[in-house]
């Protein structure tokens, strides 16, 4: 899959990803925030033809294009973003570890902005980070904060 459009810290990918997944695009890590399918043009063309006939004679119109929107995980004041054409893949544990470590220190500079975007996606990111940084107490603190917000309808 590839980056097809970049709009500041949001970019689009041609293909279906999982909402909440952390992906790598170029040198950036991003979280998938939405997946949407474009309406196929099948209805416009089919008429009295069967689906098999449409697939055989007008094959491209039955292909349903799916676009996944991703949010770059970066802090305020940072401006990096992937380039159009960059390959997108699921971020490995190593990718995540390198991205969130400066020196020996764990960092998550984007957290509160991410929380404003979507609380469930923020929780999904933290749960993924927990798998890589098992002993980082700050992740547990942030998870508890989210659970509190969800419990009291503040999400």
């Amino acid at each position, binding site marked *: 899959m590839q980056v097809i459009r970049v709009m500041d810290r949001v970019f689009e990918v041609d293909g279906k990803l999982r909402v909440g997944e952390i992906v790598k695009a170029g040198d950036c890590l991003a979280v998938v925030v939405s997946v949407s399918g474009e309406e196929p043009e099948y209805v*416009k*063309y089919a*008429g009295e033809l069967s689906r098999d006939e449409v697939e*055989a*004679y007008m*094959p*491209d*119109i039955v292909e349903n294009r799916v676009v996944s929107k991703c949010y770059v995980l970066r802090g305020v004041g940072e401006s990096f973003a992937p380039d159009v054409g960059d390959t997108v893949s699921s971020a490995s544990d190593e990718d995540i570890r390198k991205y969130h470590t400066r020196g020996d220190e764990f960092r998550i500079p984007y957290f509160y902005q991410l929380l404003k975007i979507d609380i469930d996606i923020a929780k999904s990111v933290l749960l993924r980070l927990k798998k890589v940084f098992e002993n980082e107490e700050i992740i547990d603190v942030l998870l508890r904060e989210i659970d509190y917000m969800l419990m009291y309808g503040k999400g």
Partner: protein
Amino acid sequence: MVELRDKLISPAGISRFSSFVREFSMELERRRKEFRDVASSLKFRRVKCRGKKWALSVLKGVKVVGVDGSQVSPLREFGIPAGAVQVASYEVHHGYGKWGVRYISRITRLEESVDAVRYETEMRALMESCTEKRGDFIFYDGSLTPSFAREMREELRGRFFKAVKTAIKASEESSIPVIGYTDRSYAKDIARANGLDFYDSFILSDMELMHYTEPVEVGDVCFSYARFTPSLPSRVEIPVWAKSRMDRIMEIVCAECLLGSTSAYPFVLERAHHYARISEKEREYLARNAGIMSVSFKWVSKKP
């Protein structure tokens, strides 16, 4: 020409515009007998069309290519002295579910004629489709006789005619017909041949459905008017070398039209247009990624 000292989109302007069109329709009605006399002197052939399933039987196993282009005129409003052209060649192997798209894009300087670059690129796409034998029939959305270029200065005119000659030569050498399809033609070839000054498609507006005129040669190209819908006939142009194959070509054109979303325009050209198209949003995106050098305040003030 009509001039009025008023805003066009005003009660007076709209009324005058509507009158202008009505007067044209009335002229058409007045001259209908004259047009029928011309039409009755022509020979017609019939396509034995029998609906969409028939279209599938005609197209089964046939490889068809459609070529169309789109352009971005120099992005003056962004202070970017560059334009661009994008040409898409859509290929489909009917009945086998195989398809593909190829692109040729070109970036032009402000001083260049984007229209000429686009036509040259489209003709190049036709030529490559022929030399690489990508299809059994190659459709082009437009004319193989660029008569609009006749009004241009010599150097520019020469580019258009040279470009189409290259495509026609490749078509003949590969024995693959290129088919120029013009949905709304305002040519006057038949009219002028009969001493009239009017549009051929209007003169032939009463021709029978599923019929087409006998091909007429003009230089390297021959043209015919085909009517596959109750609307005005469309103009179909092919190289003269392919004239003997006109019946088969018209069958293919008719079948492609029936597959189209309106049943009136060739499916391959609809898809070529779909892939070639550059939307307004994409145009602005291109400009922003290129780095806007200096925004025109005139443009900003015009944006809704």
